[in-house]
Structure formats: C-alpha cells, structure tokens
C-alpha cells in the first residue's frame, strides 16, 4: 500500500448471470464489506423479481399472460417497465425490451443473421413493441394487448436484460447512501458503471479533480483522442459490436442496426444509461444528437460506421455535481460533434 493514500476496497458477487463489483473509497474495510454484503443481498432479491429466467418472477409471469390478461407486478418490475416505456417513446422505439421474438426470428442460436421473407418479418414485428404493454400506474397492473399481426394471441417476451442490471445498480446505490458511503464505483460486469463521489488518488483521479476515471471509446480511443472520462454522480454504459459481433437489432426494421459500431451513454441513472446505450447504437447520429441536445444530463459517444468517431465532449472531464448542474454554453450544448 502506498503510504498516505487510503486504499480502495473491492467486493464482487455473481448474480444476474454476470459479476457485479463494487469499489469503495475512503471507508474502513469491515464497514465497507458489510455494506457491500447488504447491497449484494438487495441485488439477489431484485434478480428474483426481474429475471425472465426465474419462473416465479414478475417478468416470467408477464411473459405467460395471454393478450387481454393483466398482472399486478411489484414496484421494482413496474419501475423498470416504466423506464423502458419512457426510453422507447423518447427514442422512437429504438430501445425495446419486448424485441425478443423478432430477435429469435432474425438470428439463429449462434447469433447468425437469417434470411427471412418480408411476410415473416412483418408478422414478427407485429408481435413486438411497448404498445403491447399497457402500464397502469394507479394499481401497478400490466395488461397485454393483442398483437396487431396475423396472430393476435401471441404472448409478449419481455427481457429487461441490461436495464434490470442497471436498475439493480441504482438500487444498490440507494443502500450505500443509507450506509453513508458517498465515494463508490459500482458496475454490472463492466457494461454499465455507476460512479458516485470521488475515487481519489487511489482510483487514479487526477489531483484537483473529483470522480472516477473510466475507460471509454475502446478500440477507437486513438481516433477519439481520449480513452478516459472522469465520472461522478452519473452512470456510463457501453454497447457495441466489438465483443459479441454485430448483435444489436433495430426494432423498427428487424434488421441489424447499421448506423454505429459502438455507442456509449452517460446518464444520471444506470438503468437509463443502459437503455440509452442500446438506443444510441440503433439511432442515427442526427437522432442521438437531437435526443442529447434536449437533455443536458445525457451525453453520448458514438462510433459512426461511415464517418468515423464522434466526440462526446470537448474535454475529457465530466464531474458532478458540476456535470448535472453544469451551465452549458449554447455552443457546447451539442454534445455530439463531428471530428
């Protein structure tokens, strides 16, 4: 241990088919470990409620409903669906937790894209979309609408996927707030990271700055001119083609998303950044630009298939509360800028 630099404490836990990790700064080790354990118990609990693979979960129950039927879901599942519906609506349907049947039709078990007819595609597209879920915030019921296509009786296949993991990070952060642990980094298997407070010198935070340095831009960092952002009070999620191949489907067309090779989103919550990084893969650059322009709390970095890299910010530093509350000069409001 370097003298004078308080150490970071790291704790990991396997849940939601990934490994969650928490990095705690500025705390005594036993206290940090107990807080991490409390947090992981909460994530275990959320998995039971949100995983479509657990037959007792609300999401699995939802996926068994017939059109016309309703289910009263728990607060947690409702909040995830509400957020998913919001992002779906705000991003023109580019992020869709019901897209499963379309995905299954378009890609085989190994992930290879299939040749299918226009009629097959149209039929599958009619079974997906958040319009199939009627969310009633008064009584927490979700009602399934009949599919518009040839098979109105088709069930829905909701998969909260990364949003569920992001939501778990947000809930975990609430537990850490109860424990008064302000300086912490949480991630769900590295695709989403929630950075709170200050990692300090031990986390590699530059002197005079606050936050947690996070790697970003992947293989394109040289073109981007940066490979790190300093994040605090916000979440960063990445989505891309470099790990799993071309894996993102455009729910609007059923075809592979062709606009971007990779996308990162920064948002105040991990559930939000998770959803947005997927949407930003699918949206056109102009659409991403327009989305971010009206929301100062959201930033994007996308790698364009044709034109190369787009930069997220003029500088590499995003720090909160400065980030969230920052007075952005009009010229900088366009968070996306062509190189």
């Amino acid at each position, binding site marked *: 241990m370097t003298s004078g630099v308080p150490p970071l404490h790291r704790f990991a836990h396997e849940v939601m088919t990934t490994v969650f990790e928490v990095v705690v700064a500025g705390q005594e080790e036993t206290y940090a470990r107990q807080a991490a354990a409390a947090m992981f118990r909460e994530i275990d609990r959320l998995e039971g409620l949100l995983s479509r693979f657990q037959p007792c979960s609300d999401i699995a129950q939802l996926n068994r409903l017939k059109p016309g039927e309703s289910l009263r879901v728990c607060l947690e599942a409702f909040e995830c669906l509400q957020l998913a519906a919001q992002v779906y609506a705000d991003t023109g349907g580019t992020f869709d937790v019901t897209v499963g049947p379309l995905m299954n039709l378009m890609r085989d078990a190994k992930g290879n894209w299939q040749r299918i007819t226009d009629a097959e595609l149209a039929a599958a597209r009619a079974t997906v979309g958040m319009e199939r879920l009627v969310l*009633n915030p008064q009584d927490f*019921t979700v009602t399934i609408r009949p599919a518009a296509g040839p098979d109105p009786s088709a069930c829905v296949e909701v998969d909260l996927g990364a949003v569920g993991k992001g939501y778990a990070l947000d809930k975990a952060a609430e537990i850490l707030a109860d424990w008064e642990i302000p300086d912490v980094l949480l991630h769900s298997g590295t695709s989403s990271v929630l950075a709170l407070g200050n990692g300090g010198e031990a986390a590699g935070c530059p002197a005079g700055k606050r936050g947690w340095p996070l790697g970003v831009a992947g293989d394109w960092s040289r073109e981007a001119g940066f490979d790190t952002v300093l994040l605090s009070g916000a979440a960063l999620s990445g989505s891309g083609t470099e790990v799993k191949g071309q894996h993102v489907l455009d729910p609007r067309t059923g075809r592979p998303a062709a606009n971007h090779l990779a996308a990162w989103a920064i948002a*105040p*919550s991990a559930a939000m950044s998770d959803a947005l990084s997927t949407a930003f893969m699918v949206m056109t650059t102009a659409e991403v630009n327009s989305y971010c322009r009206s929301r100062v709390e959201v930033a994007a970095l996308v790698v364009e298939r044709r034109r190369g890299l787009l930069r997220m910010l003029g500088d590499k530093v995003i720090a909160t509360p400065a980030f*969230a509350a920052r007075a952005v000069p009009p010229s900088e409001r366009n968070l996306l800028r062509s190189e």
Partner: protein
Amino acid sequence: MNRRDFIQSVSAASAVALSQGAFAQAPAPAKSKSDDLNVGIIGCGEQGRVLITSALPIPGIKFRAVCDIWEYSQQYAKGYLKKSGHDVNVYEDYRDMIAKEKGLDAVIVATPDWMHAEIANAWLESGKHVYCEKEMSNSLEKARSMVLTQRKTGKLLQIGHQRRSNPRYIHAIDRLIREANILGRVTHAYGQWNRSVADALGWPKKYAMDQTKLDKYGYVSMEQFRNWRWYKKYGGGPIVDLGSHQIDLFSWIWGCNPSAIVAMGGADYYKGREWFDNVMTIYEFNTPEGVNRAYYQVLTTTKRGGFYEQFMGVNGALTISEVSARGDTVEREAHAPSWDEYAKKGWLKPVKEAIKPTTTRNVAVDVRVTAEAGKWPLPIELLKPAHQPHLENFFDAVRGRAKLNCPPEVAFETAVAVLKANDAVVAGRRIEFKPEEFKV
C-alpha cells in the same frame, strides 16, 4: 438536479405521461370491496420484506400499518408500501399498534423468533387473525402457548412453513407419494441446505439504535440484534432457520412424527457465534410400514449442492427443491411398475425410458447391466413468488374460503422435531421422542 431527484422526476414524468395516454390506460378493474382485507405487519426486516412483496400482488390486500423497533426497517417498509400505493401508519412498539389499529383484519408477524409467541398471542387475544413466520418459537413452551391461545381465541394462526402451500410440493407429496405411492415404501429421505461462508451482518452507522432502546426491547447489542439468528436468546440457529422448512416435510411424507434422533454439529467455524454453524442429523420414523430414516444437514461454510430434498423409495426417488432448477424430477428404478399411467394422467411428464437391461455377448452367462433410471420431470411449476401461495391460503381462510395449510398444531409438531436436533447435538447420544411430546 442530482441523481436521486432525476430518478424521481423520471418516474413521476413517465407516470404522468402514461396516465395521460402515451399508452392507453387499462380500465380500472371493477372489484368488490367486500374482499378487501386490512393488514398490518410486525417485523419489517429481510423476511418481512419478502412477505410484503409476496402479499402485495394478492387482490384485496391493503397494508394499513407497519411496526418495527428499528427505524431503518420502519422507513424501508413505509417507503416501499407508499410507492406501491399503500399509505401506512408506523409503529415502534407492537402494543401501541394493537391499541390504535382496531380496524385491521389480520397481521403478519416476521420478528426474530423469540418474540413470535408474545406478539402473535397478543394479536390473537385482540381478536385478529395472524400469519406468523416459522419457527413458532425458539422455546417449546412459548410455541405451546401459541397453540393454546389460538384455540382459546378461535382466531386463525398460520405458521410460515410455506412449502405446505406450494403446488409443486402438494403434487409431489400428497398426490405422487402418498396417493399414487409411485415410490413404493419411502425407506429414506434426505434434505440439505448449504450456504457459503458469510460475514456477520452490519448496519448503517446512522441507524444504530442506542443502548437504552436496545435494552427496552431485550437486545444485548446492535451486533446481536442484527445477527439474532446466531444467538440462543433470540433464535434456534441454522438448523431451525433453514432445516425447519425441510424437516417439516419428513412428517408430511410419512404421516407421523419422528421416534428418535441422533445429531452432531458444533460452533466450529465462526468465532463468537453461539449457535451451531453445522449440524448433521438423522431422524428415525417408526411408521406402520416399518422403520424409515431421514438424514438432514445444514452447513454454513459451503454452498455445495444448495438446498433440496430427496425422498427415496424402493421403486424410485423424488428430488425436489423450492427452486425447481435445483430439484424437479422423479427417478424410476428399473424394476418398478410402469409409470405410464401417471404420465397419461398428467401427473408426471413422460420421458423415454433409459437403457433397458441387456446382455453381454462375450460371456457365458447373461449379465444384467444396471439400468439407468429414467428421470421423469414434475409437471407443475410454481408460477408466483414462493411465499405467495401460503399467504393466499391464509387470506382465503380469513375470508372463510379455505382451510389453513399450516395451523399451529402442525407447526408445533415440526418445532418439537426441529428444536430437538440442537438438544441432540448437546446430548451426544440417541434421544427418543415420546408421542405425547408432539401434543398440546
């Protein structure tokens, strides 16, 4: 705007957007108010929260009051219920709650075990129906008082052995094993609940209770309050916390209580904890068919094998777990009578039979190769949270439409069998049960 404000504003905004028809709103379902039940909960820790989440989807359940001595749990329960649309009054002392909450129909008790009897009895005496977590108590005298109070008051008392209401367990035990006798004589049973090594529970500093308050409610320290399951004053240790659910099944299977027990175990791994962190026990059941035995282990230093139960009979073995991925099949012995009729009735999922007995060619005599037993999956899946059917059974009984699946007499028998495991560890010898020990 900070993170938390943002998150709240997103929720609020989407709630508004949704209710204003961004997505058409479902019509409010017309339901009869007569089915509504006003419910309170005492004990809002980890188990209390599981029960709240499992009760909320049940139609007609209205939470009206919550009680916990710990402010942190009060706040959690109040906040969770408020967000879920239930405005509740909050109490620290259950006596205060009894005095003020006259309008409740039923209460759920999910406090540490040592307080179950006092609190459940007080609510029964006040005329309310009670769902009380297992174990009834860490003292058989207190458990006995619950049976007596229930009898005296005539109010309902359901004890939280939730497998008793789980359709998978009911199908496996009542239908397949007891009614169809597909396993033949079940000569042996096995159960285990193994958990990984775990630190003692901590607490957020700002929510530490002061010593005056801890003293008032009988807790030696904050450490003991949080880790009550490991201390003899408050609980029965892992064999009771975990084993109770599964040891309860042995008497369900055989329709009688155990006749003797041997056990070993100890407080061998964790420093400073009173209860045994590992217990291995064998129960003997003197059934009309003859002596059958059941082995049970609870380990808290390894999760190997997780939690499941096995019932092993001369014609086959049934493996089941509350989580179906851990156990969900019946294995048929090669010599057993055909199970096809059960598959036809839908009592088992049909499977292709495994290897048939065969002969080897190069030897003078036929050699029977042991046939691998076919594995027949159970046809029923629990499609709701694990505690929900048991709560539904309770609330249906409160509405006069069902009989309790775990009344206090049944749970008392289990408590006698389970608490004796700790006695047997201490005694270090075989202990006989007297039939009258199970009676109240």
